[in-house]
Every structure is written in C-alpha cells, then in structure tokens.
C-alpha cells in the first residue's frame, strides 16, 4: 500500500474547472491509492456472490463474466421495474447544477465527475442509450452512450467515491438522491463481481459471526469483560453485562466498532455505566452483535439479510424492545428500511417505554427500536441521572452530525441535549456544515479503508475545515459524534485538517460525567487520563 504523504497544500493544488474534452471521452486512470482493493475470492465465495476471482483494477482485463453486458442490461431493467426512485431519478434531472458543489469529494478534489449530477449521468447515459427510444436512435445527441468495458471501470471508480451521504439530495429541486443511484450502481457492479474487500469482508463476517469485525462469541465476551475491568479501575464499580440471556426487557445492539476499536470502546463503556446506574433490564447479544449494516452498501437484499437478525434475536431472547447504539448508517437502516424489510416485528415485542421515566417512544411504535441518544436525552430531561460537568470541563466540544442520522432520520436535538448536559463548553460548527447540511467524514458507505487515504482526506476537507474554524475560534479540542465509522475516520481527518482535535462518542462524555451510586472518587476519565479539574481545584484550595 502506497503511504499517503501529501501535504494539504499539495492536495489542494487544483482549481474547480472542467477538462477540455467532454466527460464521455474522459476516462479515469487507476493508480495505487485511488481505488479500494477488490474483494477476495473466498469472501465472495462464502457469500455466494457471483464471479469470485483474483483481479485488480490496474489490470486491463477485469475477468468479467462472458455475458456481462446482458447481465448489466437485465440488472438495470429489473431495478427500473422495482424501484420508482431509480426510474424517476434516471428521467427527470435537468442538470441545473445545484448539486454540483455540494459533494465533499468534489469540493476537496475538483474532479467534475464527483459532481453528483455527473456521477448519476454515468449511469443515466447508459439508461438513455439502452432503454430510451431517443437514446437508442440519436445516441450522444440524446445524451446516451453505449455500454462498454470502460463504462464499467468508470462506474467502479466513481460509485466507490460516493459515501451515500445524501447531501446533494437535500439541495436538489427534485430530491434526486445520489445515494439511491449509487446503491443501484453498486448492485449492478456486484452482479459482475466488481466490488471492494473493505465492504464485502465485513458483510461476510457479519453474516456468519454476528458482527463486521468477525469477533467470535467467546472473544466478544472477553472484550466486554476487559472493558468492565477498565470501568472498575476508573469507578470502583464492577459491572456484569448480561449476554445472550433470555427474559430481559431490552436488547441492546450497537456497532461492533464500539466494542473493538479505540475510541469507540469508551463510548461502549459509557453505555454500560449508564445502564448499570439506572438499573436497566437489558442484555447484549453476540449473535446480533452488530448494529451497523454494510449490507446497505452492498445490496438491498444483503441489507435485509443482515438486519433480519435483530428481530430474530429479540424474539429468541423474548425482549420487549431494542435499544440501538451510536451508529450512523445503522440508523438509516432502522429508521427507513427495517420494518419494511423485516417487519412486522415479533409479536411479543411492545412499544418501547423508558422504564425509568415512563416515556413512551411514540416515534418507534412500529419498529420498537429506540436510539440511545433519544433514550438518554429523555433520562436527562427527567433528571434521572446525575451528571458532573466538571469532569468534561477541559473539553471544548463540537458535534459532528453524521450523514445518516441527519438526512435519513433527522436526529439533531437529542444528541445535542445529551452533550450540553454533560459539558459546559459546546460550540457549533458553521451552519452550512452541520445538521441537515452536514458533511460526511468521507469514509462512509464502506469507504473507510486505508488504501484510499488521499480520497478520504480530499473528501474530508469540508468537515475538517469547519472543525479547524471552531478550533481556531473557540479552542475546540473535541469533536463528538454518534457514529462508529466516524469515530474511526474522523481521527485521521482531524489529524490532517485540524490537528489537535480529538474524537469521541456522545456516550463517552456521558460516561465521564455520570455520577454513579457507590463510585470511588474519580480521578481519571474513561481513557484513564487524569481529570484536569481536580488539579485546578486542588490549586485553588492551596
């Protein structure tokens, strides 16, 4: 893997503009660093997906099935018949260009084909050329072009440079959603065996082992116990989280990144401490130990398949409702797809009620799934937990709205309520970069892989620059988020664009501030760093 070592100046050495040749004639050049590695044959074989093989985008011959053209045509036809969204989005774009500079990859790279309109035109031109009378007869004059091998390569290049963040769709006067177009394009590529390992291996793992990272049940238990050791070190309280146990009211599911990866683990510790403190009757599951769903980025069918385990496990364990952890795309799936894919929910599940406050979660009556930020915000609102803000006093915090909870759900206030209850120093980034206009971490939709760091840093410019703005203006040193992918991707992003800013989950802040019954005097935060406010108050005393 080529190490990414460009400076920001080198990276931004481009001007927005357009090449002299038309976009249909302009072809992408694959080179190490601008594509994610293809999926390994055994991964594809395990999943029963088509065309497992060793191949590289650098090869001239991508070893596609012999009848690949027919497969693409049939695949498109099938999807045009099944998805009105796809069909309408193929037909009604007027190329007004409102979406053009809304994409983070375009803003940070200047490649015109990263303008959402052109990304979609890559597919639209084939739609016109293959499926419309005008396109068939008039060809290029009607905006159509023939399906060639170069087109497939171009699709791979650009539909894996879209994080399905939906920012463009917010600005489109017709609501054309590039995420939808990208999802379909990736499905078509899947039919040919053109896919990336960073996405397919987690899918394989999640299917068999219950989570993306492939943590097996006994290892999962070990890790959780290890985190409980840390909690004991910090608070003096021993927590024993139930696992795979039947008969608990709540099944808690969070992305496996929270269990495994720094700094997600601190967020996970925050959840466990909170549940312990309020005495929540819950269980974890190793079988459904993944909140995230890389199936969303693979195909609608795979999304359904992976998501099905949540209800299956709730039914097996007899849980009344499911509480979901901090994860971005997980919540797009839950909020917009889950009940349609795998509902209605198991008959014994009930409308979620917060057992501590009695609040009925009226927006979750069908799926029976509640977001942890909604849950904790409700606890805070009813004064059911005690929080000591001083423990977060050294943090100047801003909040990164993750794409999916923003534009596929609309959860803006709940996490902010939680953060503001946990720390005094909260600062918003500029309005055009937060809430519904938020920018992606540039590693979403399965693109959080190392080998495309240049692409990620380019795409990270808008977020990174907004972060740098509040860093300079308000001395912000922490960016909180409610997404496990963010917690992994924003670290290199911040290191690159706003060095000195750390990343944390919202419930890490909760865990830090939470005053637990019977806890020892806290001298450390969840990362086991000394709490600065103690020194300061000691100095004041002296």
């Amino acid at each position, binding site marked *: 893997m080529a190490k990414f070592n460009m400076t920001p100046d080198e990276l931004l050495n481009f001007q927005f*503009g357009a*090449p002299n040749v038309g976009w249909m004639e302009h072809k992408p050049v694959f080179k190490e660093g601008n594509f994610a590695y293809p999926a390994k044959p055994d991964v594809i074989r395990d999943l029963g997906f088509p065309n497992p093989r060793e191949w590289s985008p650098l090869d001239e011959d991508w070893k596609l099935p012999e009848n690949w053209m027919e497969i693409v045509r049939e695949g498109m036809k099938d999807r045009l018949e*099944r*998805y*009105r*969204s796809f*069909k*309408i989005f193929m037909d*009604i*774009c*007027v*190329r007004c*260009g409102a979406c*053009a*500079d809304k994409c983070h990859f375009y*803003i940070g790279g200047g490649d*015109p084909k990263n303008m959402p309109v*052109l990304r979609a035109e890559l597919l639209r031109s084939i739609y016109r050329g293959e499926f419309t009378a005008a396109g068939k007869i008039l060809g290029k004059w*009607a*905006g159509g072009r023939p399906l060639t091998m170069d087109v497939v390569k171009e699709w791979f290049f650009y539909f894996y440079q879209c994080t399905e963040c*939906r920012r463009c769709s*917010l*600005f489109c006067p*017709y*609501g*054309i*959603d590039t995420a*939808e177009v990208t999802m379909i394009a990736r499905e078509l590529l899947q039919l040919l065996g053109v896919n990336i390992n960073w996405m397919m291996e987690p899918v394989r793992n999640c*299917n068999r082992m*219950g989570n993306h990272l492939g943590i*097996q049940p006994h290892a999962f*238990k070990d890790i959780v116990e290890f985190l409980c050791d840390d909690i004991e070190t910090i608070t003096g309280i021993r927590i024993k989280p139930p*696992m*795979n*146990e039947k008969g608990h009211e709540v099944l808690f599911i969070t992305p496996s990144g929270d269990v495994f990866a720094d700094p997600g683990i601190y967020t996970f510790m925050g959840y466990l401490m909170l549940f312990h403190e309020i005495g929540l009757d819950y269980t974890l599951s190793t*079988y459904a130990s993944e909140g995230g769903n890389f199936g969303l980025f693979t195909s609608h069918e795979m999304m359904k*398949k*992976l998501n*099905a*385990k949540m209800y299956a496990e709730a039914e097996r364990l007899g849980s009344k409702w499911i509480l979901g952890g901090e994860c971005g795309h997980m919540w797009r799936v839950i*909020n*917009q*797809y889950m009940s*349609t*894919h795998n509902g209605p929910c198991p008959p014994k599940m009930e409308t979620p009620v917060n057992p501590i406050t009695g609040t009925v979660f*009226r*927006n*979750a009556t*069908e799926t029976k799934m509640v977001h942890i930020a*909604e849950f904790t*915000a409700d606890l805070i609102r009813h004064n059911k937990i005690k929080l000591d803000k001083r423990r977060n006093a050294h943090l100047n915090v801003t909040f990164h709205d993750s794409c999916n909870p*923003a*534009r596929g759900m*609309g*959860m803006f*206030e709940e996490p902010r*309520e939680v953060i503001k209850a946990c720390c005094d120093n909260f600062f918003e980034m*500029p309005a055009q970069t937060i809430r519904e206009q938020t920018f992606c971490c540039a590693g979403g939709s399965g693109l959080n892989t190392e080998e495309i760091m240049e692409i990620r840093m380019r795409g990270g410019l808008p977020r990174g*620059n907004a972060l740098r*703005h509040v860093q300079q203006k308000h001395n912000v040193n922490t960016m909180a988020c409610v997404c496990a992918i963010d917690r992994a991707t924003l670290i290199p992003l911040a290191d690159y664009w706003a060095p000195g800013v750390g990343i944390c989950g919202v419930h890490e802040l909760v865990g830090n501030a939470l005053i637990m019954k019977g806890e020892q005097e806290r001298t450390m935060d969840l990362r086991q760093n000394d709490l600065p406010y103690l020194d300061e108050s000691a100095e004041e005393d002296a």
Partner: protein
Amino acid sequence: MAFFISLILVLTLCAASYYGAEAGMQWLFGMTIPYLAIAGFVCGFAYKIYSWAKSPVPFRIPTTGGQQYSHEWIKNDPLDNPHTVSWTVGRMLLEILTFRSLFRNTEVVIHRTEDGPRVAYNSARWLWLFALIFHYCFLVIFLRHFRFFMDPVPFFVRGLEFMDGIFQIGAPRLYQTDVLILAAVGFLLLRRVFDQKVRYISLISDYFPLLLIGGICLSGIYMRYLSKTDINAVKTYVMGLFTLSPVSAEGIAPIFFMHLFLVCALLLYFPWSKLMHLGGVFLSPTRNLPNDSRMRLHVNPWKPPKKYHTYEAYEDDFREFMVEAGLPVDKPLDKADA
C-alpha cells in the same frame, strides 16, 4: 458545441415553419401538426406517468431536512421532516410552488490563505430566483393564452392580463411577464454557457428546450409588439381548431405559424425529455413520503423472502466456545452432539 447544435436545430425549426407557411403549407403547420402535437403530448405525458407509477416504491426514503418527530419537548420541523401525510403535502407544496430545496443553494469557494485553506459557502440564490421567475412567467403566459382558446374570455384571464400589464406602458400594453421570461431564459442560458461546470454537464437536451422556449417567446413578442399581428383573425383561426371546425388561414402572417410550430415542437418533445420534471417532481420518493417507517409499517410490494443466518446455525458454529466462555446456549453440548 451542444449549444450550437441546439441553436441550429431551433433555427431550422423556425425556418421550416416560417417558409413552409409562406409557401402555402398553413394547413400542415397550422392544423395537422398542432393536432398531432396535442395528441402526442397528452399520450406521451400519460404514458410516462404510467410507466413511473408502474414501478413500486418499496422503501420510504425521504431526505430529512429538519428535526424528527420524537420527544414532546423537542420541537420538530414537520415541513422539512414530515411525519404525517398532511405535513408531507405541505412539504410538497412548498417544494413545487416555491422551489424550497433550490432556495438552499450555496456556492463553494476555497480561499487559499497563508493560514491554510478556508472553505466558504456563499449564498447563491440567483438560480432559484430566475428559475422561479421563469416558471411563474411561463405559467402566467400560458394562462393568458386562454383568451385565444375560449369565448367569452374567462374572468381569470382578464384579471391576469390586467395585473400583468398593470404598469400600462406602451400600446399594446407591455406585459411584465414577457420581459421577465426573456430575462430568465437569458440568465439560464448564459449560466449554462459561461459557468464552466454547468457547461461541462450540459447536453443538447439542456440547451434545446431552453432555446426553443426562447424562440417561442421572441416570436410571440414580435407578433404582439412589433408586427402587431391581427389577433382577431388569429383567434378565429384558433377557435376553429379547438372546435374541430378549422377555418381558412387566409391573412395570418407566417410568423404566427412559426410561433405555433415551435409550441408544437415543445409539446411533442416534452414527454420524452427532462421537461418531464413537471410530472416527476410529484412522484419523487425522497420528497413525497413521510419519515414515518419507525411508526407505521410500510410493506414492500414485491415481498422478497426473508433469508438469514439463523441463531441455530450460529450456535452450531460456536457452541463449544460459547459453553466454555459461560455464555448460555439453546442446545447443551451433549444434546447437540447427539
């Protein structure tokens, strides 16, 4: 290039109809083609809507642009994130009548400073403004033309005419919409030609309808204000067409047939082009659905089967490890082996 091809196309249409009418083919440009065009437009439009409606909407995928409906004490933003059908209608109305999404438009500028890059998002509402002017002027002008199709002239047409000419400039009175629509078409066209990135994405099918509409406006304006075409003769002629008893086109200038022919070209072109955004915007699944799938069951009409890796299969894979780690299992080791 695409611009010039479109321009040549439109000029060819103009020339064909003008000289055709002059050469005595008024029946073709003034009767046969209009009938065909109206039929083609109605059928094409209906077909297109039908073909869209035929594909189901399996998932509720609204783009949420505001706070969701959750706790009572959190104010939700129902127009940008509707949770009911009525709020969704509200969102659609705002979208269709005021182009709300386009109103959000910004323009990115990267300032490269000594202190590193600064990405700025400038307000960029010109597109919104001119798009809005264009569409509303088009609507008013379309409605004003009902004076040629209906006798007596309906009151709303008279009202529109009065309002449109309220400044009482010149004779015949100058309609503001005539000026504004030219300005709007001009803006949209110049933007396409001179904004580099918009030019890069523009196809013939982007320039052509714009130039065609420009041609329609110019020919109409020419007739009204410059050549002062005999509108009584035109009305008699058009009424003849609409009552299916065509009268002679004697005495009507060729420019009228050019105007009419361009309109016909637009009608025929419409259903097969991007102009169908007129119909499509109503059907866009990211706008016309409530964000309510956590509250209400939405069934996928093609009901795919549910297949997944079951817990039983998972336990079979890991039972020994699970037992060893003290995790509960559904089938104890001895029974599973048997």
